[in-house]
């Protein structure tokens, strides 16, 4: 009798867990969790711990006891200015990539000849990667590159423009690598909007601008916010291009360069972690702000199938 009771008890525990969705299938999640915990959460917490173990030199120079690294981050203009420099690059770049993608995606949404070729061309920069883009920009847009030569030849300018090794060079690089990414995302959001909605608007007498403004844009807005966030993340962590086509000690002295300088050149892991963490914090502020705005926008279905 007690055996039966026991069986019932375990059965009912299993039932209770099953009712909340807990059963053996959850074991499939374990490898993924192990990877995330061992390679992300643990090092991250370790890094946070490191930031409050500043080197003796740091404590001596900046004071603040165990928070010396943070004191250094906020009071050393050479380091702290990199926050503004990074934002000055990442925000306009992300904004441009998203805003430029919308009309392009709208046009490419329709079927026409050579669409696949054009799409492939837009996706091409993904294969180039930042390093090759940098090398190409240096040659193509350099003082003696084809771009300046052409502009000189047709008489638009009198002397070569300085297009690389400065802010502009990095911006070019961010657009070339970031635009295709934004375009792909926005295209897929756009394809999720039921075309019959626009046709319905057309039958109700809406012109193309009204259709875009009143129908497509509101439905696309959450997607735009998401795309902005992801493009911003890409642009924010700009590292190779800032070094290679930028002015690494001047106007493109971005946070990741500072972090790497502390890590690779000064071997000050504590300070490097501090800068890296502050980088995450700055980015998080922007992301949360944008996602907060997004949650105010329309979030329902976009009428697409599924």
């Amino acid at each position, binding site marked *: 009798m007690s055996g039966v009771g026991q069986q019932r008890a375990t059965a009912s525990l299993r039932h209770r867990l099953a009712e909340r*969705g*807990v059963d053996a*299938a*959850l074991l*499939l*999640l374990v*490898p993924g*969790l192990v*990877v*995330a915990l061992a*390679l*992300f*959460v643990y*090092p*991250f917490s370790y890094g946070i711990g*490191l930031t409050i173990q500043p080197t003796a030199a740091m404590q001596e120079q900046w004071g603040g006891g165990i928070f010396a690294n943070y004191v250094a981050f906020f009071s050393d203009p050479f380091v702290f200015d990199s926050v503004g420099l990074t934002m000055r690059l990442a925000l306009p770049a992300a904004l441009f990539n998203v805003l430029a993608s919308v*009309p*392009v995606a709208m*046009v490419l949404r*329709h*079927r*026409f000849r050579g669409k*696949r070729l*054009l*799409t492939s061309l*837009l996706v*091409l920069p*993904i*294969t180039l*990667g*930042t*390093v090759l*883009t*940098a*090398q*190409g920009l*240096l*040659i*193509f847009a350099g003082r003696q590159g*084809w771009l300046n030569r052409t502009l000189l030849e047709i008489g638009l300018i009198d002397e070569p423009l300085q297009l690389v090794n400065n802010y502009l060079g990095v911006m070019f690089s961010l657009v070339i690598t970031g*635009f295709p990414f934004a375009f*792909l995302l926005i*295209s897929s959001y756009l*394809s999720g909007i039921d*075309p019959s909605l626009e046709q319905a608007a057309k039958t109700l007498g809406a012109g*193309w601008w009204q259709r875009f403004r009143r129908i497509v844009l509101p439905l696309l807005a959450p997607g735009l916010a998401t795309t902005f966030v992801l493009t911003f*993340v890409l642009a*924010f*962590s700009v*590292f*190779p291009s800032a070094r290679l086509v930028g002015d690494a000690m001047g106007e493109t002295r971005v946070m*990741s360069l500072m*972090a*790497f300088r502390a*890590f690779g050149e000064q071997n000050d892991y504590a300070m490097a972690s501090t800068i*890296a*963490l502050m980088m995450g914090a700055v*980015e998080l502020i922007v*992301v949360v702000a944008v996602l907060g705005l997004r949650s105010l926008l329309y979030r329902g279905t976009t009428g697409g199938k*599924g």
Partner: protein
Amino acid sequence: MAASTLERPLAARPSTWFVWAGMTAFGVFLLGILLAVVVDSFGRQWFDTWFPEGLTTERYAEAWDRFALGEVVGVTVGVALLVVVISVLVGVPAAYVLARRDFPGKRAVMLLFLLPVLMPPITYGIPLATVMYSFGLGRTLTAVVLVNLVPSVPFVILTMTPFIEQINPAIESAARMCGARTRQVFTRILAPLLVPGILAAAILVLVRTVGLFELTFLVSGPGSDTLVVAIYRGMTSAGGGEARQLISAMSVIYTATMLVMLVVALRFVNPTQLVAQVKETRDD
């Protein structure tokens, strides 16, 4: 769709011309960059002229020897394949659970997988690299593979979860009602249905891993550098960097590798239709 095809909006409006002008400019930049590197890599000498004086393929041989590119390419491909295999094996089962189950703490788990994708790689890369060095893994292949898993596993999970959600769960129930055990449901029913999604995710992870610079750079060293890192080191090495043509040759090799992979990839999936294709599969 038929209506919009007939409408031919392409030639109609000034806004459309504006878009085409912008895209032409983008195309010119893109082709200019690509051609400049290719031409440079075959150039004997190229300073103050439109084209190099004389062409040669010597730069490739020279770069190949100087940077031990045989080994570097081997490392690049090897690391990429390993990362792909591990991320798929780890990511797909997790994606399955997230797509099919509701359980306490699901949102927290989702957030955990979302964070590495949303964070700048340097932010977790530096603490991670520090841990790698303190475990004596610095500059090893193991470390390169491990750091690449951090963004790749969540990437597979985040792309596969919606893919799996779109497969009708009743299909799995039907298999069970036909007497299939859990393992058979996975091997006979789910695996074949998931192949297109897994292929797409795997290709994207492959391309990302080959192109990922920041994380690899932090933990790699001689013998474990991938192509991108080798190019970066070539461009920034002390003394103003290596001869430009050598770097260009190396970049062309990199692009060729990437292009081959992407062409293969595009034979399987059209990236803009990734979402749509899944839907079509389900409509069947």
